[in-house]
C-alpha cells in the first residue's frame, strides 16, 4: 500500500468512525471551557451592566484590557494561571488516554473504545514521557541554533540574512519535531498491536519502521500536515469575512470557528488512521516475542512446581 492508498483508507476510516473525532473535539472543548469559564464570568460581570459593553462590542480597546487586568491583578491572576496549567496537563493526560482507544479502533474496528483506552493508557503514558526526551532534544537543538544565530547577528550590521537563516532553522526544527511526532505515532501503533510492550522497545521498533520506509511514512505524515495547514489557510482566508458586528454574526463566527477546530481534530485522527494502514500494509518482520507479562502469579501452581517455596 503506497502513501496515497494509506491516506485514502485512513480518510475513509476516520470519517466512518467520526464519533472518535467528535469525542476528541468534545474533550478539547470541555477542557478549554474549564479555562475560559471563570474568565467569561468575570468579563460578563464586568461588562454586562456597563455602557462600555456597547463601545467595546464595535471597537475593542486595549485600554479596557488593561483596566480589566488591573482589577484582577494579584491573587486572582495567579489562580487563573495555575488553573490554566493544571487544565493543560489534564488535557494532555486525557488525550493520551483517548489515543489508545482511537488507535485500537483504527486497527480493529470491533474493539471497545474505552476499554482499549484503559488497556493501553499506562503504556502510552510511558511512551509520552519517553517522547519528551526527543522533543526536548529538538527544542535544545533549536535553542542552541537560535542562540548562535543571535550571537552572530549581534555583530553583523544586517538583519536580513540572519532572519532568513532563522527561518531555515525553524524549518529544520519543525521538520525534526514532525519526524519525532511521526515516529512516536508509529510507536503508539506498535504498542497497540502488541508487537512490543516497553516504551523504549516500541520507540526503537517505530524508528526502524520509519527508517526502512522513509518515503511512505514521511509522505503520509506531511500530506496530513499540509492538509491541516491548508485548512488553517482556508480558515484564515474565510475569517476575513467573519466580522462580528451583530450578535447573530457572533454566533455564526462561533460555529465557524468550532467547525474549524473540529476539522483540525479530525486531521489528527486521519493521520493516525492513515499511519495504522501504512504500518499494517508493510509491517516490519515480527521481532522475537517478548515474554508475556502475567497479570497474576499462580501461587498454587508455582508452589507445586518448586518444592523449595514450601520451605
Amino acid at each position, binding site marked *: 500500500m503506497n502513501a496515497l492508498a494509506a491516506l485514502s483508507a485512513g480518510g475513509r476510516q476516520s470519517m466512518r468512525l467520526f464519533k472518535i473525532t467528535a469525542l476528541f473535539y468534545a474533550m478539547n472543548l470541555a477542557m*478549554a471551557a474549564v479555562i475560559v469559564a471563570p474568565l467569561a464570568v468575570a468579563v*460578563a460581570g464586568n461588562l*454586562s451592566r456597563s455602557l462600555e459593553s456597547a463601545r467595546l462590542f464595535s471597537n475593542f480597546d486595549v485600554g479596557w484590557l*488593561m*483596566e480589566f487586568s488591573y482589577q484582577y491583578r494579584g491573587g486572582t491572576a495567579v489562580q487563573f494561571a495555575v488553573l490554566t496549567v493544571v487544565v493543560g496537563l489534564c488535557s*494532555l493526560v486525557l488525550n493520551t488516554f483517548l489515543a489508545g482507544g482511537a488507535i485500537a479502533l483504527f486497527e480493529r474496528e470491533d474493539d471497545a473504545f474505552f476499554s482499549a483506552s484503559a488497556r493501553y493508557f499506562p503504556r502510552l503514558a510511558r511512551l509520552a514521557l519517553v517522547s519528551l526526551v526527543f522533543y526536548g532534544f529538538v527544542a535544545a537543538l533549536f535553542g542552541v541554533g537560535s542562540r548562535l544565530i543571535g550571537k552572530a547577528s549581534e555583530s553583523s*550590521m544586517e538583519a536580513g540574512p540572519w*532572519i532568513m537563516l532563522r527561518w531555515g532553522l525553524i524549518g529544520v526544527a519543525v521538520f525534526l519535531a514532525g519526524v519525532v511526532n511521526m515516529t512516536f505515532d508509529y510507536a503508539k501503533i506498535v504498542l497497540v498491536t502488541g508487537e512490543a510492550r516497553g516504551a523504549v522497545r516500541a520507540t526503537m521498533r517505530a524508528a526502524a519502521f520509519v527508517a526502512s520506509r522513509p518515503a511512505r511514512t514521511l509522505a503520509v505524515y506531511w500530506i496530513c500536515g499540509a492538509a491541516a495547514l491548508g485548512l488553517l489557510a482556508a480558515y484564515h482566508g474565510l475569517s*476575513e469575512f467573519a466580522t462580528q458586528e451583530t450578535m447573530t454574526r457572533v454566533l455564526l463566527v462561533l460555529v465557524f470557528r468550532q467547525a474549524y477546530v473540529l476539522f483540525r481534530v479530525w486531521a489528527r485522527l486521519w493521520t493516525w488512521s492513515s499511519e495504522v494502514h501504512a504500518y499494517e500494509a508493510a509491517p516490519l518482520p515480527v521481532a522475537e516475542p517478548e515474554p508475556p507479562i502475567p497479570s497474576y502469579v499462580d501461587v498454587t501452581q508455582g508452589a507445586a512446581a518448586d518444592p523449595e517455596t514450601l520451605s
Partner: protein
Amino acid sequence: MHRWASAILLLSVCLSGQNKPQANYSISARLNPTAKTVTGRETLTWINGSQDPIPDLQFHLYMNAFKNTKSTFMRESGGQLRGDRFQKDSWGYIDIKKLAVAGGADLTRAMEFIAPDDGNAEDRTVIRVPLEKPVPPGGQITLEIDFVTQFPHVFARTGYHGNFFLGGQWFPKIGVWEKAGMRFAKTAGWNCHQFHANSEFYADYGAYAVDLTVPSEYVVGATGIQKNAVKNGDGTTTYRFEQANVHDFAWTAQPTYRRFTRTFDAEREVTAKELTDISRLLGIPHAEARLSNVEMILLLQPEHAGQAERHFRATANAIKWFGLWYGAYPHATITVVDPPNGGGGAGGMEYPTFITAGTSWLQGRNDGDPEGVVVHEFGHQYWQGLVGSNEFEEAWMDEGFNTYSTGKVIDRAYPGWTLPVRLAGIPLSNLMRLPGLTWESVDRAAYLSAPKADDLARRAWEYQTGSSYSLNSYMRPGAMMLTLENTLGEAEMAKAMRAYHQRWRYDHPAFPDFIAAVNESTGKDMNWFFDQFVYSSNVADYAVAGVSCEPVSEDLGVFDGNGGRRTVTAAEARKIDEEREKNHKRQWLTKATIRREGEAVYPVDIEFRFENGETERRQWDGKYRWAKFEFTKATKVASVAVDPEHKLVLDANWTNNSWRAESSYATAGKLTSTVLFWVEQVLATLALLA
C-alpha cells in the same frame, strides 16, 4: 574653525535676535575608525547672561558614564538601558588633554570631578573648573579644550557598531548657569547634573561650527547644514557643519549609508483648507500659520532603502503638523538616521536637526513603526530642541508633551495603525488582523499598568524604577495632556500649547511656566488640575455606585388642605395607582448614587437616559465622596453615565462609569468566543505531544 568665522557666526546669531546665545562651540574633530576614537579641539565662547560674577565653570563629560561600572549611570542602569545591554570591555570615556582660557591660563590642573546629585566620588561625568578671575555679569570667556573621546560599543544613544558611528554626548559640554529665579531656582548656580540612567539632557543655546574629518569612504550626517566637504589628500575628507540656535551637536558616519534627500515643500504639503482651518482654530492670520521649506535627509541602512518613502512621509507629516500647531520648524534641515542591526542602542534619539529612528528588515503595512518613532523623534525638535526643557529635572515636559503631540499626528496621519508584532522577523499584525489602535488607548493602557507608581513630577533619576520613569515621563503625561485637552476643549488647548511654545522657544521653562501659559491663554485657573494629576500620584475613578427606579405610589395617611382634612387609605392608594397604570400616567422615581472611588478630584458630567429617549445632564464638582441624584418622570431610567465622553482619560476604570437597566452579554459573548477559540487551538497543539 578660524577666529573670524567664529566671530561672524556668533554675530549672526546675536543679530538674529531670536535667542540669547550662551554657549557657542567651534570644534575640529577627527575620527579614527580603527581605534574608535575622536580627537578634537573645542573652542567654547561662553557668555554670562546673568548679573552674577561667576567664579567657576562646570562641564558635562557624558562619555565617562561608560568608563567603568562605578559610574552613577552604570550603577543605576546595571548596564542595561532601553532594551539594550552594555557590551563589556568596550568602555567609553573622554579625556581632557588640555583646558585653557584662550590666550590665558592653563586650567587643566585645576579641573576636579564633582558629583552634585549623589556624591558618588567615582563618577566622572561632571567637572568643575575654578577660574583665576570670575566671568563678570554680561562678560564672556573663551576656552580652548583638547580632548579625546573613546566610543563604547553602541549603548545609550552613542557609540560604534562595526563601521557605524553615532557621535552623541561626545564633547565637553558646559552646564547651564541658572540665575536666581530662572526656572524658579531659589539661588543662582550651575545646573549641571551627572549622567543618569533615566535621564536625557539640558544645555544652553548657541551656535555650533564643527569640522569633522573622517576617511573619505564614509557617508556623514550631522546637526545643521553641511557647508562644505574638503578632500585632504590623505584619504580623509573634512566636512563642515554649522547651525545656530541649538543646544547640542551630534553626527553619524558609516561607509554604506544610503543617502536620500527631498525637500519638504510647504506650499505643496499644506493645503489651503488646512491652513485656513488651523488659522481659524488658533485665531491667527494665514501668514503666521504658514510653514517653511525644509531639506529632509535620510541616512538609511542599505537593507532598509526600500522604506525611504515611509520615512519621508513620516518626516513630512511631522514637519507639517507640528509646524501648523506650534509654529513653523525654523531650521533648514532635518536629518533622519537609521542605525544598523546591532546598533539599536543608538536608535530613537533626538538631537537638534538630527534624529535617529529605527526600523526592521520587514515591516508590516500598518505597523506603527517606523512612522511612530520618526514622528516622535522629530517632535522633540519642538519640546526639547526649540523649547529647551530640562530633561534631568522635568523629563515629562519633553517626553510627555511629545508623546501627546506625537499621538495627535499619528492618529491623524495613520489611522488604524497597529502595534508591530513579529515572529522570526515576520510582521504578523496584518495576518493576525490585530485591531487598530489610537495613541490615547495606548497611553491609557500603559498608565493603567501602574497608576500609583510615582508622582508625575519627579527628577528623572528619582522615580522608583526605570519603568516608572518611562511611564511617568511618556504615557502618563500623554494621558494627562489628553485629559487637559478634553477639559479645555480642542481650540483652547491648541492656543495654549502654541502660546507656551512661542513664549519659550529658545529658552528654558519649568513646569510652573507651562501652568502660567495655560492659565493666561485660557483665562482660567487650572492649578487644581495640575495639583491633581502632576504633583501627586492620586488615581481618578468615578463610578455609578447604585441606581434604583421605583414606581411612585400615592401617599398614604391624613392630609390637611384647603378642602379640609383628607384620609388616603391603602386600598384607595392602590386603586389610584392602578388607575394611573391603566392610563399610562404612572410616575417613576429614579435615584442614582455616583461615587468618587479614587483620590483625585475632577468635575464630572453625569448623563441620565430614559426609556422614552429623554436625557438629563447634571454636573458634579466631584469633590465629596458621593453625590445622589433623583428624577421623577413618567418613564423608567435606561442608563446612567458619569463622564460619558471619557474626558477623564486618567480614570482608572471606565467600565464602572456607567450603568444600564438591561444587561447585555453580547460583548462578553464575543470576547469569550474568541478566547475560547484560541485556548482550543493551544490545547489542540499541546495534544500533539500525547
